[in-house]
């Protein structure tokens, strides 16, 4: 009797474990099947590097280069803002802050992670967007820059908490060794602790960027959504994610446009996958 119970429980757990893999495979097959169909009407090269995205013109022009560049620009901007601030914040929490401040900061960061992206997008729309518009004297504040700033807030919690973890797990005797040689606190941090934690910090940055590139709601609300190749960060852009979210609702099922949106999905999937694998490699290197 006990044996049967063990057997049943074991198998149930096995099924649960396999289910997640199974669904991932199903999703990928579905994505691939629907997405690859677009290459009947447009070559992969023209799809990836085509400069115009007019999916409802006749014939449709399905070049996603503006969307890829839009995503990259917004992500790069977010990284430039969030990486230095995030790492500095992690150093402060892990090394400098007194215990009390540390706890307040950590829960603050967690709270930031808990804000739904649509709320952040909404706040950005009514505060950040007019601000960007008036500071840079632009016709519209719905720009890549606004999106980058908002996304930086979303990347920050990931970067801070993982980088802080990496710094915290640097063996304490490295720090003692450096101090015993007469290093100041700051010299110890940037000559010993940061290099020792570097692989974890790179992983933190990659995971933060991974979060940014997949983000949809906030960018759709505040980047202006125009599918043109951006020349400065002060122009409206449209990202890959926002394109899918905005257009999937009204697309004709089975049309070229429909398949193209799935193909964009594949591109996003590949980018996120590559970022996560890179982050993973660095996390493993640390152990």
């Amino acid at each position, binding site marked *: 009797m006990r044996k049967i119970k063990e057997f049943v429980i074991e198998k149930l757990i096995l099924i649960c474990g396999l289910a997640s893999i199974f669904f991932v495979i199903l999703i990928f097959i579905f994505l691939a099947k629907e997405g690859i169909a677009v290459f009947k009407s447009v070559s992969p090269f023209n799809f990836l590097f085509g400069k115009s995205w007019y999916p409802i013109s006749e014939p449709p022009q399905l070049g996603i280069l503006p969307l890829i560049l839009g995503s990259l620009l917004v992500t790069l901007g977010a990284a430039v803002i969030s990486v230095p601030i995030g790492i500095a914040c992690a150093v402060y929490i892990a090394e400098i802050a007194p215990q009390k401040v540390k706890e307040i900061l950590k829960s603050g960061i967690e709270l930031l992670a808990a804000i739904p992206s649509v709320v952040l997008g909404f706040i950005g729309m009514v505060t950040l967007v007019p601000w960007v518009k008036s500071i840079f004297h632009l016709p519209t504040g719905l720009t890549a820059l606004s999106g980058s700033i908002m996304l930086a807030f979303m990347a920050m919690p990931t970067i801070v908490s993982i980088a802080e973890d990496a710094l915290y797990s640097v063996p304490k005797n490295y720090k*003692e*060794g*450096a101090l015993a040689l007469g290093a100041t606190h700051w010299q110890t941090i940037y000559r010993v602790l940061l290099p*020792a934690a570097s692989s974890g910090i790179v992983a933190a940055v990659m995971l933060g960027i991974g979060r940014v590139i997949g983000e949809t709601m906030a960018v759709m609300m505040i980047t202006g959504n125009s599918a043109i190749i951006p020349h400065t960060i002060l122009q409206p852009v449209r990202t890959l994610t926002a394109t899918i979210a905005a257009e999937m609702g009204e697309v004709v099922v089975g049309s070229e446009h429909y398949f193209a949106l799935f193909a964009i999905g594949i591109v996003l999937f590949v980018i996120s996958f590559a970022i996560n694998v890179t982050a993973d490699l660095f996390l493993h290197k640390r152990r």
Partner: protein
Amino acid sequence: MAKILTKNLNLWYGDFQAIINVNAAFSGNKITAIIGPSGCGKSTLLRIFNRMNDLIEGVRTSGEIIVDQENILDTDADLVVLRKKIGMVFQRPNPFPLSIYENVVFGQRIHNSIRKSELDSLAEESLRSVLLWDELKDKLHKSALSLSLEQKQRLCIARLVAVKPEVLLMDEPCSTLDPQATQRIEELMRELKNNYTIVIVTHNMQQAARISDDTGFMLLGELIEFGKTDDIFTHPSDKRTEDYITGRYG
């Protein structure tokens, strides 16, 4: 001539008094061993000499430690200068996760005290002084973490010697090493004492007897007996010292 002189030294961790009224004179160019059972305060005493205890919250001290006519416990003592003068080797070898070369020149880089062109000769000189140069001269740019435990500990000593300190504090430097490696590190210490004042904390009484000139025996925070190693080990004046060195406890 005493290099380090403690006067009525007391130290508390919170409410717990870890060092009780220690008066001792540590001579220059000699090896002084501090022995005693676990928790007797010997590591604490060692770490106070370059103020490493400052890292722990809730530490208070009273009394004086005089090094070169200055009381290093003064609140305005310059810790960077102090730790350059009084360096420390730890129980577990702790080379930084950098190259061997960068480990050796680390101290000079942070203190910015010599020209870049002199770093190479400094690295060679320091590695030679711990007898690592011939083994490692062709792999200076490999990670220090790839070395054996003994090599790591030697590297830590080289890293310290490169800062040109006057005193080397060693906190059970051989406790993670095998007997052969221990013997070689001990030989190295005998050589180093010509140029440095060495204070070593050890669990190992034979080690203390082998290498030290002076020995202090600590028990429950007190320095029970302090004197020439030969005297302490042959005719200790305190019953508790005798019990400890004859292995009745510890």
